[in-house]
């Protein structure tokens, strides 16, 4: 009896889960594996379309004879790299009209012109001509001929499904001089973005955890940067930081803080002179990190605040009785209570910042030293149009992610459920 019950239970569970699991597999897991496949192929953006034979029909009149017409079919292989085999052609003619001197590849039968064009190489082009005449020597209506569209069919390999593989993409990814620079930029961006967001989030949480007038209002607006759409916010920042007519530069110049406007998003380096040392600051990258911190500290804030509110009040009261000041209370009570959440936040935010694409893409497009790995996926895949390279970079990202996740689960995976 229990056996059948548990069987029913199992069957119910699988039925309930199937739609969701299927969808997630198809859209999330399948692409991750498809990336591996594509990354070993030489595929350009334009090759994605399955190659097809195409024909453009042009109808010309023959000047001395109104009862005849010349039809020119501009035939071509749509693909630049793939062959198409066994191409068959079909066009229909109206009643009482027949072709004159038909090409040997074609046959005319019951108003249909059928041709067997055999195989077309990549980039193949041909002007195929047919002269037609009216059997009753009447004038042929051009438009009737024009309106009939020819049909073509052929077998072509889908480039994504062939078994031609190459290591070229990975060689190119790693041999690129900039690969190390790319990796470093990604790590700078990720590390400082994460740490900055957590520090600001901690201050904000500490602030909102106190009682003051307008506290709920403050708590709402602290989440605005995260809730707002990234497109709108990134463009607002671009406008704010614009060197020519941006508010920030105009303000700084107006109050004589700087002599001439600084292109905060377009300048790669800024040389600072500190204590006689020249320090080269990655300016655009720093600005992008600032935006990143501004946009994501609310998440850290939310997490830390939730933890702070769970700290028992009597801990603080006891400390006060013992004569501890605010600083000691913070160091000895608050900090130990939130270290666990801080480390989890760090790992999770690290992984997510590592994958951040939209923010950098919208602010700088990856220019002026802000190209990170995710930006590189886009640039290789869609700006350079090399899908294979883009996938290879994606694979690099996935590999690094898996390493991060292993570290994450080794370090704090078990504690993550407690919070």
């Amino acid at each position, binding site marked *: 009896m229990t056996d059948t019950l548990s069987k029913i239970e199992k069957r119910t569970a699988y039925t309930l889960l199937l739609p969701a699991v299927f969808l997630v597999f198809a859209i*999330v897991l399948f*692409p991750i594996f498809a990336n591996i496949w594509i990354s070993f192929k030489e595929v350009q953006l334009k090759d994605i379309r399955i190659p097809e034979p195409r024909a453009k029909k042009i109808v010309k009149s023959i000047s001395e004879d109104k009862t005849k017409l010349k039809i020119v079919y501009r035939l071509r292989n749509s693909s630049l790299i793939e062959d198409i085999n066994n191409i068959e052609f079909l066009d229909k003619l109206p009643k009482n009209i027949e072709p004159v001197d038909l090409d040997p590849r074609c046959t005319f039968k019951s108003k249909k012109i059928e041709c067997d064009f055999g195989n077309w190489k990549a980039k193949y082009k041909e002007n195929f001509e047919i002269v037609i005449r009216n059997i009753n020597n009447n004038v042929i209506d051009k438009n009737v001929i024009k309106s009939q569209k020819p049909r073509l069919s052929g077998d072509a390999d889908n480039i994504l499904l062939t078994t031609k593989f190459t290591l070229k993409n990975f060689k190119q990814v790693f041999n690129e001089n900039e690969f190390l620079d790319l990796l470093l930029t990604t790590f700078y961006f990720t590390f400082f973005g994460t740490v900055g967001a957590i520090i600001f989030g901690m201050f904000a949480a500490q602030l909102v955890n106190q009682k003051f007038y307008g506290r709920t209002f403050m708590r709402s607006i602290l989440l605005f940067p995260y809730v707002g*759409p990234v497109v709108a916010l990134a463009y607002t920042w671009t406008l704010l930081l614009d060197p020519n007519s941006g*508010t920030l530069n105009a303000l700084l110049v107006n109050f004589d803080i700087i002599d001439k406007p600084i292109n905060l998003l377009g300048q790669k380096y800024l040389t600072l002179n500190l204590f006689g040392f020249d320090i080269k600051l990655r300016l655009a990258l720093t600005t992008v990190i600032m935006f990143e911190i501004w946009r994501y500290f609310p998440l850290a804030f939310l997490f830390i605040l939730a933890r702070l509110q769970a700290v028992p009040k009597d801990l603080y009261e006891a400390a006060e009785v013992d004569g501890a000041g605010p600083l000691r209370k913070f160091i000895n009570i608050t900090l130990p209570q939130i270290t666990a959440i801080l480390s989890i936040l760090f790992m999770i935010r690290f992984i997510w910042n590592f994958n951040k694409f939209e923010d950098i893409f*919208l602010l700088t497009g990856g220019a002026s030293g802000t190209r990170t790995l995710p930006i590189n996926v886009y640039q290789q895949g869609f700006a350079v149009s090399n899908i294979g390279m883009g996938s290879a970079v994606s694979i690099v990202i996935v590999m690094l992610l898996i390493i991060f996740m292993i570290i994450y689960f080794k370090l704090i995976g078990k504690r993550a459920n407690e919070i």
Partner: protein
Amino acid sequence: MRYKPLLIYLFISSIFLTLLGSIWKIMATLQGLNLTNINFNINFLLAFLLSFTLIFIGKKINQLIKIIIFSAIFTTIYIFINEGTSIWYNAGVFLISLFFINRVKNYDLNYLKEDFISEKIIFDFLSLFAIVFFAFVILFPFYLMFVTSFKTQAALLFNPLDLSINFTNDLMEVFKSYFVIFKTYDFGRYIYTSSIVSIGTVIITLIFAIPAAYAVARLNFFGKTFLSTSILIIYMFPAIVLVIPLYTVFSQLGLRNSIEGLLIVYTATTLPVAIYMLQGYFKSIPKEVEDAGLIDGQNWFGIIVKIIIPLSLPAIASVALYVFMIAWNEFLFSLMFLDNPKSFTLSRAINHLTGDAETPRQYLMAGSVVVTLPILLIFVYFEKYLVSGLTAGSVKG
């Protein structure tokens, strides 16, 4: 007499007051006032003198009289030093000094003798700093977005500092950018598409996620632990590594430039977190409630619809709002999959506007307001639900 707390108090309170004055000056400059000097040193000295006088007067005279008299004196000297030109600007200075003196009215020499007073002062003023700092830093970009949409390109290039809106003009002129983006750039259609996509994503996600979450929370089956851990792991994989394969497959299937394509992708990417959030809540519902339903002869469909869903409406609301927010704000997939203006979402449309360098920025900002305002309003109105959704889902972002 203890000098350390006194000095700390004087120093930090003067910096705070000077900072408030400077921010007010910046805001006034942005309303078109011609102020060119922050005068930090002199203002700091003035604030220092004020704090110094106040701490020695302490509570010796009536607080109200003290606040008003000193505000008036401070404002007069401040205006004299800082070439105050406009009445509303001077009134603002007066209000700031009122606020400041009211804030420090309880400080006197006796108060400084308390335990840990230096730390308390520092924490007190740091909180004030933090409130002003966070409010300013967060709200300023939103403010800029909003006012820029009411300006004209020529006015902005002529004086980027003058952000004042002239409401005495024809209202048609003031709201011109909004008329233009709806008429010329067809934003009405984009709002419609974005709404359909977001609401559709919410509905489909819930239809898929509720049964799955119920199975994970309640039923025993082979591979349960594997499934629940893989949900979170899958969730960690970012959109950017999915984009190339999805792009190629969608191109071949003809799903690009279609709302259906977006719906499929958005649903699949938000499903893991929706299941994760819902199953946590379902587990907290007592099992006895369900047993009652079982005895009544309900099957799983009946139990989910008649018992689970009514009991977990708050959690479902959180998930729905969170998914709505993700779908409404989503940019990467809409950038990749949509290149026909007829199928644009709002985010993609704004991005498309910037593709043309000639597009005046006020149109861009009007578009930004149109995409930002709904989501902010929803957030403010349903804050409770959305915050719990965010907290649960904020592994992602």
